[in-house]
């Protein structure tokens, strides 16, 4: 770790001021990603702004009937929250499939959105990496790329965004509320994370002086028909190779609305509205699900070690949709 100074803030405006004053400062919440990256010398902040004592640690109803998840609520407290379990079980499932109980007790909702890729070259400061040091090249494209992206890649970077929670938030169309020196704004979940393009060093559209204050869930929770399917190298405590969040609104055997988000395949949770629209009005049959999987993965491109993800993702999409459709409606 490099030498850094530390400051503790108690309100949002002080946090924003600290960040605006010093572009080499970083917020620290649970610390489970940032401290790891600092130990590896990948992140080298000159100042840590500890935001843990800002009162953003509540889960409350919003006026439109949705739920507001404070940025500093832990992943555990979110997953086991009674309202989240009842109304947004897809989110609970996704969170609980990630990391370990200890890490979820530390990790915060804001930090989960901001976690960085697990690309091994990004972590290894002895290798070139455009995300870590722009312009040095991407070691993964011609290297070992089993965990890497197959959709939305660029010639600069093929990293994946590793969060499980965010795959569910993408399907639920959450809103990320942020505050910066220019005030507050709401970022639709689909616009929060970026594709790598020519600037893979930038993961999200959050500005350096902005802090996430909450993640708002719209009223619709798809509690009756949802599934989070995570495929990984071991059964627990491993990042996804491919994951699928499926949320359906059913009318008998007919699909009224479908949402699908994929993890482990791209630089952001992956959605394809055209493909989702194909399911509208369709019945629950393997053929209909397969057709959607083909559309979603149509432009996928493998890099050798990760090419298996294309077929894996198709099968995972079909299976997740099947699980979601067949769930017993809750009484």
């Amino acid at each position, binding site marked *: 770790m490099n030498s850094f100074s530390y400051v503790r803030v108690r309100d949002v405006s002080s946090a924003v001021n600290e960040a605006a004053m010093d572009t080499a400062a970083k917020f620290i919440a649970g610390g489970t990603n940032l401290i790891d990256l600092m130990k590896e010398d990948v992140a080298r902040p*000159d100042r840590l702004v500890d935001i843990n004592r800002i009162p953003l640690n509540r889960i409350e109803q919003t006026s439109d009937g949705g739920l507001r998840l404070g940025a500093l609520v832990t992943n555990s407290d979110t997953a086991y929250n009674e309202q989240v379990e009842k109304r947004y079980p897809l989110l609970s499932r996704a969170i609980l499939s990630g990391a370990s109980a200890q890490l979820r007790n530390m990790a915060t909702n804001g930090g989960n959105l901001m976690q960085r890729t697990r690309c091994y070259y990004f972590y290894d400061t002895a290798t070139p990496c455009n995300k870590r040091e722009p312009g040095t090249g991407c070691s993964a494209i011609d290297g070992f790329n089993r965990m890497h992206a197959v959709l939305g890649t660029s010639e600069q970077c093929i990293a994946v965004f590793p969060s499980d929670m965010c795959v569910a938030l993408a399907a639920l169309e959450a809103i990320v509320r942020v505050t910066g020196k220019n005030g507050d704004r709401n970022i639709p979940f689909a616009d929060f994370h970026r594709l790598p393009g020519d600037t893979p060093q930038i993961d999200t559209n959050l500005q350096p002086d902005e802090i996430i204050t909450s993640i708002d869930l719209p009223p619709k929770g798809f509690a009756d028909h949802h599934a989070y399917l995570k495929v990984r190298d071991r059964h627990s405590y491993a990042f996804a190779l491919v994951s699928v969040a499926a949320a359906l609104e059913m009318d008998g055997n007919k699909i009224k609305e479908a949402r699908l988000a994929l993890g482990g395949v791209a630089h952001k949770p992956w959605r394809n509205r055209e493909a989702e629209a194909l399911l509208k009005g369709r019945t629950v049959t393997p053929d209909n699900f397969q057709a959607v999987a083909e559309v979603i993965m149509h432009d996928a491109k493998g890099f050798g070690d990760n090419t298996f993800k294309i077929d894996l993702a198709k099968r995972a999409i079909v299976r997740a949709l099947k699980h979601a459709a067949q769930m017993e409606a809750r009484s």
Partner: protein
Amino acid sequence: MKRPIEFESARRVTPSPQRTQITLNVNGSEKRLNVAPWTTLLDLLREHLDLTGTKKGCDHGQCGACTVLVDGKRINSCMTLAIMKDGSNVTTIEGLAHNGTLHPLQQAFIDCDAFQCGYCTPGQICSALGLIREGHAETPDEIRELMSGNICRCGAYPNILAAIQQTIKTTKGV
């Protein structure tokens, strides 16, 4: 939407920061400590307080050997800075026995032969204590899943599971 600005800026030299005084309650006794900002809770326990029961396995949140309870919740002490926990209550393996009597979980680990080399054991026991308090695990599969953050290189898993089950059965809330 505004144009994204680069996050990582060039390295800057900062003067070595002052140590800061923090207060921690460790296993029931209050400690005033001078810490540098980068000292992890794990290093503080082991190097400053000589509480070497808590182990360093990976130092990256991947093994659970460093598990302790902070304000009653199990966390990885390698992934938190001591300074962030100013004012908290920390419980380590050294704090579980009372007046010479082992905690039921410690006794169960002995009864069930739930360790071989013992390196992961303090973390396993602190994690199991957190698990029991959280109250989300009853079946063997639930216990396995919610203990997956503790790796045992010796593979004592079946016996660890048995020890936790025995404790849940005999204590009903520790």
